[in-house]
């Protein structure tokens, strides 16, 4: 049967020589079983053609972004990590509307810090890439209601899947990352009292505030870390 299928497959693909093709043509006139096989093959092929679908808009930007980031080699601690892990830190990132612009911003960032958990580093990088420096953010949040900027982005870092959303409050933009797994404390972070396992940290001008629990939330914004719990409370629940 396998040999028969190979021959019939080659016949249907037009890969048989003229003599074999003539033999198959003649055979098909007499053999109902093979003629049915030909018709079924054609029907299956036509059905499969229905599945053709162009790549979604934005996928090219996303791929370019990921490759640019990988090329920049800015994964924190990447020198001691296997390459496979290094490549995954931003996997899933950036169904970002301004993918290329963000990629350029990421490339201009300073290098990472050794020992930084990949998930935290990825969120911090993302926040640094999309939020303007604190000095350009204007007078502050005031009493502005949060407005979501862009669409949620899924990042996979250190094997941890994270959904990242960006919120604008007045002149301030804050990144909120949500994951089903806790965000590990980075070096230099401070544990905070209160319910759950909370910590805060400072990365340059970026403040980080994390509340780990059944669903863990990491808020990143260019404000003092002490202000982030209050800021987080103003954002919609994850």
């Amino acid at each position, binding site marked *: 049967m396998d040999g028969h299928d190979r021959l019939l497959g080659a016949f249907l693909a037009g890969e048989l020589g003229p003599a074999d093709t003539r033999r198959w043509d003649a055979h098909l006139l007499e053999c109902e079983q093979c003629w049915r096989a030909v018709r079924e093959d054609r029907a299956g092929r036509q059905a499969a053609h229905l599945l053709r679908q162009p790549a979604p808009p934005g996928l090219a930007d996303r791929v370019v972004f990921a490759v640019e980031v*990988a090329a920049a080699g800015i994964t924190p601690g990447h020198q001691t990590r296997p390459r496979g892990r290094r490549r995954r830190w931003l996997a899933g990132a950036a169904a970002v509307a301004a993918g290329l612009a963000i990629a350029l911003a990421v490339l201009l960032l300073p290098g990472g810090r050794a020992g930084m958990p990949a998930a935290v580093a990825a969120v911090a990088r993302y926040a640094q890439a999309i939020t303007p420096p604190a000095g350009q953010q204007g007078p502050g949040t005031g009493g502005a209601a949060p407005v979501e900027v862009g669409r949620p982005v899924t990042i996979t870092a250190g094997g941890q899947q994270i959904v990242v959303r960006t919120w604008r409050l007045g002149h301030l933009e804050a990144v909120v990352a949500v994951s089903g797994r806790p965000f590990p404390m980075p070096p230099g972070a401070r544990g905070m009292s209160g319910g759950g396992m909370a910590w805060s940290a400072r990365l340059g001008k970026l403040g980080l505030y994390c509340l780990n629990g059944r669903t863990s939330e990491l808020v990143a914004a260019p404000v003092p870390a002490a202000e982030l719990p209050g800021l987080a409370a103003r954002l919609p629940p994850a």
Partner: protein
Amino acid sequence: MDGDHRAFLEATLPYLDVVYQVARHAVAGGQEPEDLVQETYLRAYTAFGSYRGGDMRAWLAATCLNVARSDGRRRRRRPVELPAVALLDWLPGVRAVGGEGEADVADVVIAGLDAQAVSRCLALLPEPQRVCIVLMDVAGYTAREASEALGCPRGTVLARVHRGRRRLARLLAEAGVSHGWP
């Protein structure tokens, strides 16, 4: 190697659409095809330094399939395979095919299809057949390119795609998909 990323993107981005076609049907349960495409490009970029020419489309397809398989193993999940009975439950216009005087399978299938039903039925095929159909009929690979991507003889690819198409047609006929065909 890092300085080569522009050359890499220039060489590979024209094939984004075909990689996406492969990814959509090779993706493991719970994974998004866009994630698989991105991981494919990242892995291909890592290996680009050792790329020695040849068919770029076939190389990217092979990379995509390898990433999908390794990711599937990592997740320890198998592709979702609906039993035929379950399939019949949700497909519209189900009618049995069999017995004397049955409708010709090809006629039933060509009578009308919708892409969602085709996609569900395609998922029921054994992986070797499904992959060959995706490469050749969905992504537009030639038998030679598919055989290069899969690392098996061209005759094997042709036999698999033929058996897969027939099986796909029969599944669709059994499901009685009979509307939407232009």
